[in-house]
């Protein structure tokens, strides 16, 4: 049995050079495995058999060791993913604020259940766990960009636009949602130059600060000689 992956020469060459760049970030090459799996997804749209073999060969570990890692983490897909992962938070806070209703309606609207992909290959629907945006509940993630304060209608409109190939703008994030493969490449640690997009934080992020500004509340003044070593700011 051969363990060789079946990438064509050009793909293999670029995978290898990207993987070299990844492992160079760590004192130990094995630390590169998680970003390498994101890299594989950026090429194949999921963690393919070829991708597993490539990682194993490149890191000098067994395919079983790679699979053991790949199957542990929810962001690694075992089947070809849609162009867009649409994840509705159905953890407690979001679920109760309306996430359950959003998931149910989206599921009906798209004709797919959790971890299933629409026939046109556009959307993979998921239930996601808490995504650290509870002050914007109910939250939906599209390719790991934030869509805050959703309703069933707003969520359906987003998926309709995605399927129609129209550009879609997250509430906090890049100007437009990138594809699953493009985002996977960013998660492998290769910047896409979009960090400056998206502007100011949303209202909940700024809620306390706004109130402080309105009331003239500030942190305590710095005592004149209070700093260690006496150097003033």
């Amino acid at each position: 049995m051969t363990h060789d992956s079946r990438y064509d020469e050009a793909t293999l060459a670029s995978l290898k050079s990207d993987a070299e760049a990844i492992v160079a970030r760590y004192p130990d090459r094995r630390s590169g495995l998680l970003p390498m799996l994101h890299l594989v997804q950026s090429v194949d749209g999921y963690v393919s058999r070829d991708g597993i073999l490539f990682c194993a060969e490149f890191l000098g570990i067994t395919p079983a060791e790679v699979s053991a890692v790949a199957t542990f983490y929810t962001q690694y897909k075992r089947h070809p993913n849609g162009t867009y992962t649409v994840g509705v938070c159905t953890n407690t806070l979001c679920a109760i604020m309306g996430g359950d209703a959003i998931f149910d309606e989206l599921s009906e609207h798209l004709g797919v259940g959790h971890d299933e992909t629409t026939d046109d290959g556009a959307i993979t629907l998921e239930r996601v766990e808490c995504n650290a945006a509870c002050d914007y509940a109910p939250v939906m993630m599209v390719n790991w960009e934030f869509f805050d304060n959703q309703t069933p209608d707003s969520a359906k409109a987003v998926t309709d636009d995605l399927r129609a190939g129209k550009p879609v703008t997250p509430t906090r994030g890049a100007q437009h949602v990138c594809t699953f493969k493009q985002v996977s490449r960013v998660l492998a640690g290769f910047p896409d130059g979009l960090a400056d997009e998206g502007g100011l934080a949303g209202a909940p992020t700024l809620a306390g600060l706004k109130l402080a500004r309105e009331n003239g509340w500030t942190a305590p003044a710095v005592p004149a000689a209070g700093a260690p070593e006496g150097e003033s700011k």
Partner: protein
Amino acid sequence: MTTLTPVLTDTWDKERSWSLDTYLAAADGYTGLRKALTMPQGDIVAAVKDSGLRGRGGAGFPTGLKWSFLPPDDGKPRYLVVNADESEPGTCKDIPLIMASPHHLVEGVAITSVAINCHHAFIYVRGEVVHVYRRLLQAVQEAYDAGYLGKNVLGTGFDLEVTVHAGAGAYICGEETALLDSLEGLRGQPRLKPPFPAVEGLYARPTVVNNVESIASVPSIVRNGVDWFKSMGTERSTGMGLFSLSGHVTRPGQYEAPLGITLRELLDMAGGMREGHQIKFWTPGGSSTPMFSDKHLDIPLDYESVGAAKSMLGTRALQIFDETTCVVRATSRWMDFYAHESCGKCTPCREGTYWLKQVLRRIEDGGGVDADIDLMVDLCDNILGRAFCALGDGATSPVTSSIELFRDEYQAHIDNHGCPFDPVRSALFEYTPKAGALAGSAGGH
């Protein structure tokens, strides 16, 4: 009256708040690093110790003390690993912090590295927040370009490399030893402690693991002094912290306040509960901290007071639910989460969360029997203190605390063979429920 004390949040309303330019102009950016580079390393550690700063990632361990546990420098590598995995339900402070002002964190990483003589630091960011990862990658690059990171930091001869690493979706990777395994390219499963990371951490070398907010607070301490930091908060819970209000409140969001503020004060600032409703239950620090009710509004939110009230300050993740909310539904859904995220390494948590999930589901769906409540208490008893890591312990918190506060509500589900609450009333929008067959039930994933 307690007022808000914007320190970490203070730059967030500035244009391009995430950029180095803004950080330099609006927050005296990197003056803390400049000062730290002139200080003996021991003095930086001592300052952080004296400040009383306690870990903002949940457990509240004194930060300076943790740093001082590193064994004497043997000239070989020692590491700083920042925990930006933020996945505890309700917790939503580190992610907006990095999105809005990543340089607070990057400067903190640089100062901490100087303090503990680390030359390679890592920031482990959960993978499900791509724009946050973009901003952090860019901030680190800006800091390299400006000479705050890299070879010969600010001409001092100190070298510091920083690697920003994206995870791939696993709550357990927030547990510090699981995080280290994950960072080494393995399945993220907790390690036996001791040895603690300070002694054998990343690549079996001495390692400090700290939360984003802990590290981001360090520059302000170095810059403004220990007394300044201690002038906020209480005697044993010093400084400011991000309080994250979510749920049925008028203006949910981030409120940076001195530790010891109460929920009553915070709710007041947030415009109260949504109109026409009253508070029913809330978590002081995420789903793994025992829940409180309307009787606990005046407890000072500091480590000691919340602990004395039999919960934990945790991550100050204040998830707030009004009287329309079914506590059984809330708890059942949290248990789905723990069962899903249990790493499977130890039996009490792997099996216990599975069974708790089944029993809760049964009660929620109307099939509960009288013995179920005691069965759950018994199950929790067999997990708490017997699980390999704190995930298992945390999983019992919502169950035991909700039974303690709302036992009648569980009993009502059992007696009436179903849930007396209408989920439509607790949603933030009007809708007509659809029983979609495809959608399946939550927790089936």
